[in-house]
């Protein structure tokens, strides 16, 4: 039995999803010969630390009842630096202005010899290469499948399964909120404002939807793809971004009549990064509906490979994180 100790930094929807997945996969992990222990969990109010392994069920219950996992006041940075463990699961919210607190957490994790698995886009959209190089220099893994496309394994697909291929270009729909809004507008012939309100009531769109509907979230994900897959050194400021706020139901109807749907498409090709509404033929694999995410990867050997799936959700995102954790366990 291989004992692997991890910390979960950030205990919101994603952090709790990771905890739940570890609980539900206990038997599976045991069969794989892995004793996965969570030795530290932190949220914005404090933390719980137990070097022998935290009672996860208990921690989830406390979070639900009291709104925080905290039983002590030691910070995320204290856990990362001082508690002995192997992998830091960085699941704090994305901050696109300066990447904090995720960036500081990641830098410290690499400095103190811990692998990183993250769902946090901010630090990667701003300092991807710095983090990647720091991980390499220290012989550590830096895994971020959960940052783009939720459950859809884009990076694993390109880096592992399609190894040897040159990626010519990537097109994808990487924001479920926009895709939901455009799908509903098109199917119900409803104006943008009304569908947005509906999406907000369903919890699909945030109270302040700017980040999604102006294409910023898509741009950030595109930057991570560009840096990881094309080896660029770009930040989200390098992306030419157009959102979906100006799209009319009439435009969608005109598209529909001519066999097209309109999608907010991220495109990386020849070093150019674009996020914009695009016409997609209805029968094209990119024409996925609802909150689905999809990525179509054009390679020199394999041709076109398209994968789609759930782009958000606590357990779906945790699936990518768990997969990254297991990758590290198997390869270290």
């Amino acid at each position, binding site marked *: 039995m291989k004992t692997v100790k991890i910390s979960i930094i950030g205990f919101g929807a994603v952090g709790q999803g990771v905890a739940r997945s570890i609980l539900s996969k206990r038997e599976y992990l045991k069969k794989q010969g892995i004793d996965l222990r969570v030795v530290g969990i932190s949220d914005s109010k404090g933390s719980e630390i137990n070097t022998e392994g935290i009672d996860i069920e208990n921690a989830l219950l406390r979070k639900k009842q009291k709104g925080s996992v905290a039983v002590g006041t030691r910070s995320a940075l204290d856990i990362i630096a001082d508690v002995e463990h192997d992998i830091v699961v960085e699941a704090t919210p994305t901050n696109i202005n300066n990447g904090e607190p995720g960036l500081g957490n990641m830098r410290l994790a690499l400095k103190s010899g811990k692998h990183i698995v993250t769902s946090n886009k901010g630090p990667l959209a701003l300092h991807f290469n710095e983090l990647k190089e720091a991980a390499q220099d220290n012989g550590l893994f830096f895994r971020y499948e959960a940052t783009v496309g939720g459950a859809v394994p884009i990076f694993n697909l390109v880096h592992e399964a399609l190894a040897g291929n040159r990626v010519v270009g990537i097109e994808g729909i990487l924001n479920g909120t926009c895709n939901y809004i455009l799908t509903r507008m098109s199917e119900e012939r409803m104006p943008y404002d009304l569908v947005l309100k509906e999406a907000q009531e369903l919890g699909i769109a945030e109270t302040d939807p700017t980040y999604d509907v102006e294409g910023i979230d898509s741009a950030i994900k595109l930057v991570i793809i560009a840096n990881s897959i094309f080896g660029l050194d770009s930040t989200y400021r390098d992306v030419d971004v157009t959102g979906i706020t100006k*799209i009319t139901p009439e435009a969608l109807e005109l598209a529909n009549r001519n066999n097209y749907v309109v999608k907010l498409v991220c495109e990386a090709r020849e070093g150019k990064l674009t996020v914009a509404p695009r016409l997609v033929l209805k029968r094209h694999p990119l024409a996925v509906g609802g909150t689905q995410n999809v990525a179509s990867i054009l390679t020199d050997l394999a041709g076109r490979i398209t994968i789609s799936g759930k782009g958000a959700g606590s357990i779906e995102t945790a699936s990518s994180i768990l997969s990254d954790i297991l990758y590290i366990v198997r390869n270290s």
Partner: protein
Amino acid sequence: MIVSMTLELKDIPGQLVLALSPISEFHGNIMSVIHQHDEKTPRGTIPVQITFEIEHRVLDNLIVRLENSGVKVARVGEERLRSTVSVILIGHIVHSDMGDTIDKIDSTGFAEVVDMSLSMPAVEKTSSAYLVINAVGEDELGRALDIMREVADKKDLLMIEPIRLNSVGA
């Protein structure tokens, strides 16, 4: 690409459907059908001219399918304006002088706006237009799109183009 074909049909009922259905099976977009019922060929067949838009790579298969179903393909011609692209414009299109926008494309000599549908929900609201631009080749189509982008930018219109990788190795 846009193809014009002359087919020869037997003078019995049901032949036109026989000729048209393979085109839609291959996702061709039929633009015009000229059925000359009173102009029989010396062979006693009826010539039909069909113009349609179809992906280049399926054209040969389509011809085989037509011939196998008893439709004679007498002539296959590529239209002069063989590259085509659809775009959508959103904004105050009518106030921005649509005629001028179309003129800018048509006056190039290598590209034309061949179709346009306009939807105006109310006077004060933004309108939406669907345009089809044809050009003599892919490079010229690219240049026509550049002109459109410039115009859209100047007139503060949102222009929605098709995805690009689609045509490459799709």
